[in-house]
C-alpha cells in the first residue's frame, strides 16, 4: 500500500468512527426514549452536546494529569479505530492484529483512572475503582471468546478472520459456526459498554456519575466523544468476530447498529447490579459459556 493512501485511511477511519458513533449515541437515546414512551432528542443532539461542551468559556482543569488522562481516554480509542477493518479500508489492521486491539481498548479506562485521580473527588475515586473492577470482570470472558474465535480461524489477524467468515456466505459466519461463543461475547460486550444492568461505575443516583463527576466543559466533551468511539469499537469488533464484517457499507452499518440495539434495548429495562454481583455473574455465566464454546472449537 502506498504511504499516502495509508495516511488518508488512518485519518479517515477515526473520523468515520466518530460520525457513526454519534449516530449510535443518538440511536441509544432514541431507544431509551421509545421504551419510556417519550419522543426523544432531535437528530443532531449528540453533535449539539459535543459542540456546546467544547465551547464552554471556563475550563476547570485540576492539573496536568487530568488533561493527559482525557487525551489518553480519547487517544486509546482513536488508535483502536485504525485496527478495526471497515469495508474498503483496513488501515494497519493486518499488522496490528486482535491482541494489540485488546490492549488499546484497555487504555481509555486507565487514562480515565489517571485523570480522575487528580480530581480528588471521592465519588470519582469510587467510580474509577468500580470501572477497573468491571474491566476485570468483563475482560476474562472477552479474552476467552476472542481466543476461541482466533483459534477457530487459525489467525489473530482481524482481516483474515473476516475473510474466513465471508468465504462461504451466511453459513460460515462466526455466530452460526460458534453460537455458544457468540452468546458469551454478547454478554461480555454488554458489560463492556457499561450500560444497565452493568452500569456500576456511572450510577448517577448513587455516586454522581462516578468518573465524570468533576469533568466540565471540554473534559466532559472529551468523554462524550469517547463514548461515541466506545459504542462504535465494541459493536464493530463484535460484527467482525461473529457476523462476518461487512462487504458493503450498508451491510456493515446495518449489522453494527443491530448488534448495538440488543444490549441497549435490554439496558433501559433493568436497574443496576452491585459490583460483587457483576463479578459473580460475569465470571460464572459468560466464562462458562465461553469455555464450552472453546471446547467445541478445539
Amino acid at each position, binding site marked *: 500500500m502506498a504511504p499516502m493512501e495509508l495516511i488518508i485511511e488512518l485519518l479517515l477511519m477515526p473520523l468515520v468512527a466518530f460520525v457513526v458513533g454519534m449516530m449510535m449515541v443518538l440511536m441509544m437515546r432514541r431507544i431509551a426514549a421509545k421504551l419510556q414512551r*417519550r419522543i*426523544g*432528542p432531535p437528530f443532531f*443532539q449528540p453533535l449539539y452536546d459535543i459542540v456546546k461542551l467544547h465551547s464552554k468559556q471556563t475550563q476547570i482543569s485540576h492539573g496536568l494529569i487530568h488533561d493527559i488522562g482525557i487525551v489518553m481516554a480519547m487517544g486509546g480509542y482513536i488508535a483502536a479505530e485504525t485496527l478495526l477493518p471497515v469495508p474498503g479500508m483496513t488501515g494497519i489492521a493486518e499488522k496490528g492484529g486482535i491482541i494489540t486491539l485488546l490492549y488499546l481498548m484497555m487504555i481509555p479506562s486507565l487514562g480515565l483512572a489517571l485523570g480522575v485521580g487528580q480530581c480528588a473527588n471521592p465519588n470519582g475515586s469510587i467510580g474509577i475503582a468500580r470501572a477497573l473492577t468491571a474491566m476485570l470482570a468483563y475482560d476474562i470472558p472477552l479474552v476467552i471468546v476472542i481466543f476461541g474465535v482466533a483459534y477457530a480461524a487459525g489467525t489473530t489477524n482481524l482481516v483474515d478472520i473476516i475473510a474466513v467468515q465471508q468465504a462461504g456466505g451466511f453459513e460460515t459466519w462466526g455466530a452460526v459456526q460458534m453460537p455458544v461463543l457468540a452468546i458469551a461475547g454478547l454478554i461480555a460486550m454488554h458489560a463492556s459498554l457499561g450500560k444497565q444492568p452493568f452500569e456500576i461505575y456511572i450510577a448517577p443516583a448513587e455516586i454522581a456519575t462516578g468518573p465524570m463527576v468533576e*469533568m466540565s466543559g471540554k473534559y466532559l466533551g472529551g468523554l462524550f466523544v469517547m463514548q461515541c468511539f466506545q459504542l462504535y469499537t465494541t459493536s464493530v469488533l463484535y460484527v467482525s468476530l461473529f457476523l462476518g464484517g461487512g462487504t458493503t457499507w450498508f451491510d456493515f452499518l446495518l449489522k453494527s447498529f443491530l448488534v448495538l440495539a440488543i444490549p441497549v434495548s435490554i439496558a433501559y429495562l433493568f436497574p443496576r447490579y452491585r459490583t460483587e454481583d457483576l463479578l459473580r455473574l460475569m465470571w460464572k455465566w459468560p466464562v462458562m459459556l465461553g469455555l464450552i464454546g472453546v471446547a467445541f472449537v478445539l
Partner: protein
Amino acid sequence: MSSIKQIPVITERKGNPLARVFDEFVRFCRSRSLFILHYCTGCGAIELPPAMTSRFDMERLGIQPMVSPRQADILLITGYVSIKTLKRVILTYEQMGSPKYVIGICSCTVNGGMYWQSYATAKKLDEYMPVDLYIAGCMPRPEAVLAGLQKLMDRIHSGEANSWEDYFRNYDYYLGNQQKLFGENWQTPTDIITEAKHYDLIDEGTFGKHTQLLEQHQKPLEALDMRLGHDLKEPTE
C-alpha cells in the same frame, strides 16, 4: 443589578465573516443543548419529573438532567431558599462552568412568596446571584416550566443571556448582600476575583469595600488531604 434591566445593545462585529458564522453556530448549539442541575429546595421540584418524563419530555428540546454542578449549564432553584440553603446554592453556582444560567422557579425565589415574613428565608434570589429567568407561580405547571426554558433558549441563541458575566462584573454587590446575610467572615472555596482576572471580566463593580473586607480575612485555598477517614469540616459556617 442584573443585566436583564439593561437594554441589550448588539454591536455589529467586524472581521472574519466565517468567525461570525462560527459564533452563530456555537450559540445555536449552546441553546439546543442544556444540562440542568435541579437544586430541589422547595415544593417546585415536584413539577420537574413530569416535565422530564413521558408526558412533556424535556429531552426533545435537548434539555437533560445532570448530577454534578461541573457538568451543568442551568441551575434550577425550585422553591424557597433558606439562609442555610443559600450558602450551598452559592457554592454550587460558583463551581459551575461558564456560560451558566440560573432559573428561579416558584414565587418564593421572586420575592419570598408565602415565606415573606420568615426570618430564615432569603427573599430575593437575584440579590445573591444573577438570575436569568424567573418562572413565577405557586407552583408553575410543567407547561410553564417548558415555556420558560424555551424563552431561555431564545435568549441564549440571540446572545442576550450573559448574566453570568454580571456575577464577575458586579461581584462587590453580590458579595455585600451575601455578607449581610452570612456575616463578615463569609468566604467560598472559589476565588471569584482571580477567576474574573483570568477571564478578563474585571469591571468597576468587581472591587469595592466588600471585596476589601473579604481580602482581610481570606484564607488561601489548600489542596485536600488525600487520605481516608479524616474529619470533613464544613466550609466556613
